[in-house]
């Protein structure tokens, strides 16, 4: 328990410094000015969302390969956390877009992909709520999760085909170079967001494990009560 308290406090501290770095250390952007600073929050949440989605995929495949319920706990934990980060993307994106593009939303493929992924992870979590049987739920949601992940490259491909309004990627191999200080702040923020993501997944995993153990205990108690009731019935012990 103490371990988590320390991790929580450390992450909070690092997050606080990330906010400070994004607001005061990173230089002012020439055309967009202050609103550009949301980028440190927006893009780094994007990285965390992608990483969490990758964890979901790995956990889905690993579950089908090993049938160890721990992978299922990890999958659902990472799916919920990735949904949270995708939501951050969807909220901070329009806040940036409105002053810069003049519209809250544009149906280009990057935005659409984020929205689609958001919907897909909602569908994944809804699917899980509608199947009662624990093992079936794990298997079927793993299959669906793998299908979801396989669709992502196709969506990405479509972005490349479809010329968009969205700023071209500037960090990896884009045409315009990012200022070195901006880059440092961006990498720092991405690192902190990843840390936050990992922390959240761990906490959620713990919860899922507790839920599973509670379910097991409840079943054991039910079974125990049933056998006791059986043994008190007249004629018990003969079978």
């Amino acid at each position: 328990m103490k371990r988590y308290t320390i991790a929580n406090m450390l992450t909070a501290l690092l997050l606080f410094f990330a906010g400070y770095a994004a607001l005061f250390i990173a230089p002012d952007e020439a055309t967009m000015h202050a609103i550009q600073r949301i980028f440190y929050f927006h893009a780094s949440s994007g990285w965390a969302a992608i990483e969490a989605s990758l964890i979901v995929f790995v956990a889905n495949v690993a579950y089908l390969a090993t049938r160890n319920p721990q992978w299922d706990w990890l999958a659902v934990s990472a799916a919920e956390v990735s949904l949270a980060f995708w939501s951050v993307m969807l909220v901070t994106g329009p806040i940036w877009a409105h002053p810069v593009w003049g519209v809250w939303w544009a149906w280009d493929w990057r935005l659409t992909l984020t929205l689609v992924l958001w919907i897909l992870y909602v569908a994944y979590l809804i699917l899980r709520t509608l199947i009662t049987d624990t093992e079936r739920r794990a298997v079927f949601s793993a299959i669906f999760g793998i299908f979801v992940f396989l669709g992502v490259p196709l969506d990405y491909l479509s972005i490349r085909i479809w010329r968009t309004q969205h700023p071209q990627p500037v960090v990896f191999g884009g045409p315009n170079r990012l200022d070195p200080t901006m880059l440092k702040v961006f990498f720092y923020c991405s690192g902190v967001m990843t840390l936050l993501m990992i922390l959240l997944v761990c906490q959620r995993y713990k919860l899922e494990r507790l839920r599973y153990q509670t379910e097991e205990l409840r079943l054991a108690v039910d079974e125990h009560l049933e056998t006791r009731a059986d043994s008190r019935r007249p004629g018990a012990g003969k079978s």
Partner: protein
Amino acid sequence: MNAARAASIVLGREVRAEMRTRELLQTTIVFAVIVVVIFNFAFEPSVGEARRFGPGLIWIALLFSASLMLNPSFAREQANDTIYALRMAPASSFAILLGKTLANLLFLGITELILLPVFSILYNVPLLPVIGRLALVLFLGTFGIVVVGTVFSALGTQARLRELLLPLLLLPVLIPLLFASVEATAGLLADAPALDRTWMAVLVAFDVIFFTASWLLCDYLLEE
């Protein structure tokens, strides 16, 4: 028994079961036609607009029809627990899934055979000059829909509210396919009809990726 033969037997079984009642086909066809008709009341498109929005209309009608039609594919097996008989048959899970996928491809294909002339007449969009290339686009798009849809139909069997769940799972996963199919169809309905190779490649990639995935995952899908 090899997979192709087993799959063809499952296909024959699905077709025979359907032909006894024809309820799935008639319901799907009427539903698809209704979508095409009410579109007119909602948008009242001119001939030019019908060419512009027609591809989207056709594919939306097909996607919605499929998301309703594919649900009984596995749900029907539960009424008399015939899924156990299928599992016991000396056929691989892939053969069973393939047979069902092909049956759904056939049913959705028949729906298209009726839907397209109705669309062409009601909206005055001539389809005959591009019918060969259109058939190719329709085949690739429909194949993608039924490959994913048949797998998801099996996912729904154990779930509550499965009639609602299938469209919820299916439609977002099919978005790249919808995009590619609509763009490819739009290319054929343009003034100078041309088959867009890029979008055809996306369609083929979609079909190959998800067909392979359903082949790899079918054992998990049909297990006890």
